[in-house]
């Protein structure tokens, strides 16, 4: 095994960030005011006169905790719509679980609705009955519960199910009493984990916790001193780590949770600068704005590694805790048909989602436009390093490669194998690609047979390529407009009666062409002189058509009928074909008589003499076939060939055909024809007999161009 393995920079699937439990304190003291006041009555000068503005409102500790935790979830769900799960628990005299690990319960809307039902804490409730502990115990229990993804992985891994880890994080928003109180909470969680792990060992739906990170956020009102000290992450036990953040309610708490969500989910911040925006008041002036976005930090990987951080315009804000990289807006290009070399695409979430600059930027992108972003460099050179683009209502930050490519200056494809061939069927293959274009199928529209759509797509490609010559000069039929209906239909998995009819019509049409001695678009490339004679050309054409249809004949009875039709038409004396055709014409009531009407009388007399000859051959089976309607299967036609001998190669029964079997098929087809002698061949000179001699005399030079113009 090659020891060099490309390591993708991805966190483990079941790291602690797979499961996050929020435990929010709902005890009476959380109803206390945060003492951060919000002026919501902003009076304009013109109206303000003589009015007493409304007293500012202030959020409670509970409101602060809830809105900041919702913001944490909003960012998380924007960037990881799947597989990063939140379980929200509220704790007072008991615990209230607001959602489960299930994917469909992971939404801001659902949580908001559940929170509204809980309401703010009741300040009159007995504080003695209330405790955050109820919620913390529930959180540990919840971490033991298996998620859909864990279940799915365990099921697929079977005997290696133990590779699926169970880790999680508890974010506890509370108002603790003291450091001792915090230690008590930690010990309690540690004990609960041990208890729950014992329980989990005996259950299928539970998993023991292997690692739990406790993030305790102590919230206290503005203007008060904290009773709890900050403490960095420490190991309580091999199963539990704990960290304590002591934060004032209000915007400090918001900033803290914003930093935490970045740390917990490997996020980084990019500020898009120089975004031109029309002013609300003065529509014809525009100012430049900045918008900060969060995304997975790998979008900055190149900067981190190259130590380019400072060059890239890092700005450090708010006591060095928060860093953002500045990228400059470049006027958008409208060309969406260009494939950029993109090394990563990461979902974004704006930090300030409903500010005007943010919503302007996001709406601009959601409308389908892309923006290239430029990395400011000291040297002043311009490097496009990223691109913002939305796909299906989700905005992604694409990382573009800005380094020299190791694939530069490769030999052109025209210098390699097949590069000097000039008559590829490029346009035809283009059509082929459009016919084999992929479309998304939903889970519900899946084929009940269980074959996934991608496999069906491959099966379709297989059918469409059973006979697909790559160059124009290798094919006659595929250059003929007259063959198109048949060529398009025969590749289908199943044919309708109507399809069979169309194919047969196509074949009769070809017979007609042959009878009229229409020229064929046979390439003269590679042959000297005038090329093969017309009857030779028709023979090649028929051979090719037979080859095409033969590759599909085994698929269904109807496919076989198309082949039978070809065999019948080409291998019979001309008169048979004609008769059969006219029989069909009568059935279909297709008014084509005026076209051939004038010739009918003469045709008949000629046919009659030919038919006599045919009858003399005493091939009764054949004459039966002649009477047969082309719409019913012609099993009898197969008989003489099967009975003759081992002419049918077994490959015919299967799908794809190798060149060898195609060739043998052709030879056997040719041979099989011999047992029922071609009327013309009986009278042939030097094994050659000119067909439709009388027609030629009659029609003179009446030649139609039936084929496509060759390219």
């Amino acid at each position, binding site marked *: 095994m090659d020891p060099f393995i*490309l390591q993708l920079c991805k966190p483990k699937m079941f790291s602690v960030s797979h499961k996050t439990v929020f435990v929010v304190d709902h005890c009476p003291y959380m109803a206390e005011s945060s003492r951060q006041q919000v002026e919501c009555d902003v009076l304009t000068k013109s109206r303000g006169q003589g009015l007493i503005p409304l007293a500012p409102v202030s959020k*409670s500790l509970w409101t602060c905790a809830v*809105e900041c935790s919702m913001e944490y979830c909003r960012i998380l769900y924007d960037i990881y719509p799947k597989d990063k799960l939140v379980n929200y628990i509220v704790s007072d005299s008991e615990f209230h679980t607001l959602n489960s690990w299930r994917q469909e319960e992971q939404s801001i809307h659902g949580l908001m609705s559940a929170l509204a039902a809980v309401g703010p804490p009741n300040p009159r409730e007995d504080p003695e009955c209330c405790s955050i502990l109820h919620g913390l115990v529930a959180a540990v229990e919840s971490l033991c519960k298996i998620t859909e993804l864990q279940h799915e992985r365990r099921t697929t891994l079977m005997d290696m199910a133990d590779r699926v880890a169970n880790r999680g994080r508890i974010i506890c928003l509370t108002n603790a009493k003291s450091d001792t109180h915090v230690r008590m909470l930690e010990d309690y969680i540690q004990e609960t984990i041990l208890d729950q792990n014992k329980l989990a060992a005996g259950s299928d739906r539970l998993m023991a916790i292997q690692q739990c990170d406790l993030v305790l956020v102590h919230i206290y009102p503005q203007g008060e001193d904290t009773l709890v000290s900050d403490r960095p992450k420490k190991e309580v036990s091999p199963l539990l780590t704990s960290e304590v953040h002591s934060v004032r309610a209000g915007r400090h708490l918001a900033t803290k949770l914003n930093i935490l969500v970045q740390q917990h989910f490997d996020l980084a911040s990019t500020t898009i600068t120089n975004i031109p925006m029309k002013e609300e008041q003065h529509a014809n002036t525009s100012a430049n704005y900045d918008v900060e976005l969060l995304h997975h930090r790998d979008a900055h990987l190149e900067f981190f590694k190259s130590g380019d951080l400072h060059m890239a315009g890092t700005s450090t804000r708010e006591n060095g805790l928060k860093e953002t990289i500045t990228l400059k807006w470049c006027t958008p290009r409208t060309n969406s048909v260009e*494939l950029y070399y993109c090394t990563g695409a990461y979902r974004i979430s704006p930090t300030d989602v409903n500010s005007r600059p*943010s919503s302007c930027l996001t709406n601009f992108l959601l409308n389908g436009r892309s923006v290239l972003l430029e990395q400011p460099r000291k040297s002043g050179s311009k490097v496009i390093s990223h691109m913002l683009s939305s796909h299906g209502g989700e905005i992604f930050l694409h990382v573009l490669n800005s380094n020299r490519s190791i694939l530069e200056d490769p030999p052109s*494809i025209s210098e390699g194998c097949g590069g000097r061939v000039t008559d590829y069927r490029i346009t035809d293959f283009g059509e082929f690609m459009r016919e084999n274009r*992929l*479309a998304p199928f939903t889970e519900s529209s899946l084929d009940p047979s269980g074959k996934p*759509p991608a496999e069906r797509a*491959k099966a379709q490609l297989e059918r469409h390529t059973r006979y697909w010559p790559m160059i124009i000069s290798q094919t006659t039929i595929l250059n003929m407009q007259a063959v198109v209906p048949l060529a398009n239909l025969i590749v289908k998995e199943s044919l309708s009666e109507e399809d069979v009819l169309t194919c047969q019509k196509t074949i009769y049409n070809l017979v007609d062409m042959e009878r009229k001695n229409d020229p064929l678009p046979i390439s003269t490339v590679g042959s000297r002189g005038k090329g093969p004679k017309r009857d030779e050309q028709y023979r090649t054409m028929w051979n090719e058509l037979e080859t095409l249809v033969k590759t599909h004949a085994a698929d269904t009875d109807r496919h076989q009928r198309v082949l039978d039709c070809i065999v019948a038409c080409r291998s019979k004396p001309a008169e048979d074909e004609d008769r059969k055709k006219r029989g069909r014409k009568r059935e279909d009531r297709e008014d084509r008589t005026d076209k051939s009407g004038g010739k009918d009388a003469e045709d008949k007399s000629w046919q009659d003499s030919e038919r006599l000859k045919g009858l003399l051959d005493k091939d009764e089976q054949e004459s039966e076939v002649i009477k047969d309607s082309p719409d019913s299967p012609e099993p009898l036609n197969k008989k003489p060939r099967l009975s003759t001998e081992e002419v049918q190669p077994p490959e015919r029964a299967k799908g794809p055909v190798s060149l060898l079997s195609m060739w043998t098929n052709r030879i056997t087809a040719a041979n099989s024809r011999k047992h029922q002698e071609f009327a013309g061949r009986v009278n042939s000179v030097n094994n050659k007999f000119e067909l439709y001699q009388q027609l030629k005399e009659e029609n003179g030079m009446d030649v139609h161009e039936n084929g496509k113009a060759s390219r």
Partner: protein
Amino acid sequence: MPTVVLMDVSLSMTRPVSLDGSEEFQRKNLAVHGLNMLFEHMASNYRLEFTSLMAFSSLWELLVPFTRDYNTLQEALSNLEDYDKTCLEAALQGVSNVVQQEWGSACPCQVVLVTDGSLGIGKGSLRHSLQTQKHRGEDKKFPLPFPFPCKLFILCVANAEELQMSDAMDNLEELLRISGGEGQIFTVEGSLCMKSVQAMFGKLIDHAYSAFHAVLHCGNLSSDVQVFPRPEPVVVDEEVEPIPRAVSTDLEIVGFIEISDISSPPVITRHLVLPIAVNKDVDEVGAGATDELEEEPSASQMAGKSPNFCVLLHGSLKVEGMVAVVQLGPEWFGMLYSQADSKKKSNLMLSVFDPGLQPLPWLGKMSHLGPTSEATENPFGEDDSKSPFPVQPPVKRSYAQNITVWIKASGLQTDVQKILRNARKLPDKTQTFYKELNRLRKAALAFGFWELLKGVADLLERECTLLPDSAHPDAAFQLSHAAQQLKLASTGDPQFAGYDHNIIPMHTDFSS
């Protein structure tokens, strides 16, 4: 993946190798011989690889910058001079600089270090470097691991026993470990001679410089191809799927997608797909087959003249502006497209997606991409005017759904002002007024911010008193109705404080 050859030209490399009866060689001669062999192999089988040559002793020098001109490399090898002692750390720092300058820090590289295993003594020796590497400041960090992904191959013109007598082997192993572990140490087996050194370089060639040959399939059409650079195995998740996944040697096209639909997808690697001629009878089907061969054309001429599927595919992809989705292995996909290097030159390129069933969210699951013909209704429209891509996610993101955030005071103020603005334009703006009012009500209830509901109710009552005489009588009714409803909600009474309950406009005689 570019290669840096780092050649030891310290004095110890001039140590003679005793060979019985024949010409006397230095270790350097053996190393040069081996490298010549490597370069010759690359020139004929791996010629798109960019290689540079560096020599080092106590100093380092870039002899040949990255090139595909293997003659220049060989020429530089023949002009090597001998210098003083070995100082590997400085040279590795040099490698790091040279590679980053040329390729940045994302491009994986291979470093071929050729040495005799005498790694210096005292300060500047590898032993010293490794001993001190943990106790250094940020500015003097040991150059390994490199910022770019790297495979380090160490070729010792010495046998393993010799290296194990000193601590050289241990130090080299440690070096390999801190480089990220991707690489290998090669030593000479048996006695030092041309043959054994050749064998050692042969192993390196097999290991790292053998061409990746595959067959590109599109149904029954196919072509033998070389994929360059070699696609490397990928580990998706160390914990759950620790076994690296390798690209299959059968690349199967699944179908085709427009460039605008696939929309600059992220890729992990890119590769050229070069058609190759494998000794096989040239397929000639149908008309135009010529059997006579008057003169025997050269093999490459023949290959150029016989149709190749890659060329056809490339031409059509280019003309149609499409890509081919290609399956590289179980649950692993990539795309083939025409990549133009310049106006004249273009090539068939393979981009490899992240392994997994949904590398691109906007395409949905790759296994759920199926033939358009099987859809009940053409998803592209009969006139090709629409597209089923991008696939919409089931839930909208926060920025697409008018979410309420009041973390900043300005957010709350804007929402209150919006209500007041509409309140003054009642009854014209009744619908917007209630829409905004209900949005605020929902958020206030979720956040347990009942105080705000009371505050806004007060504001609306005040607005009611401030209505000019000319105001529509309906305005006063709606304002007091709204204020009353907010007040009721602020009590938390479940009858009025339901999250999904909406305040509906009061039905008045005026509004009908």
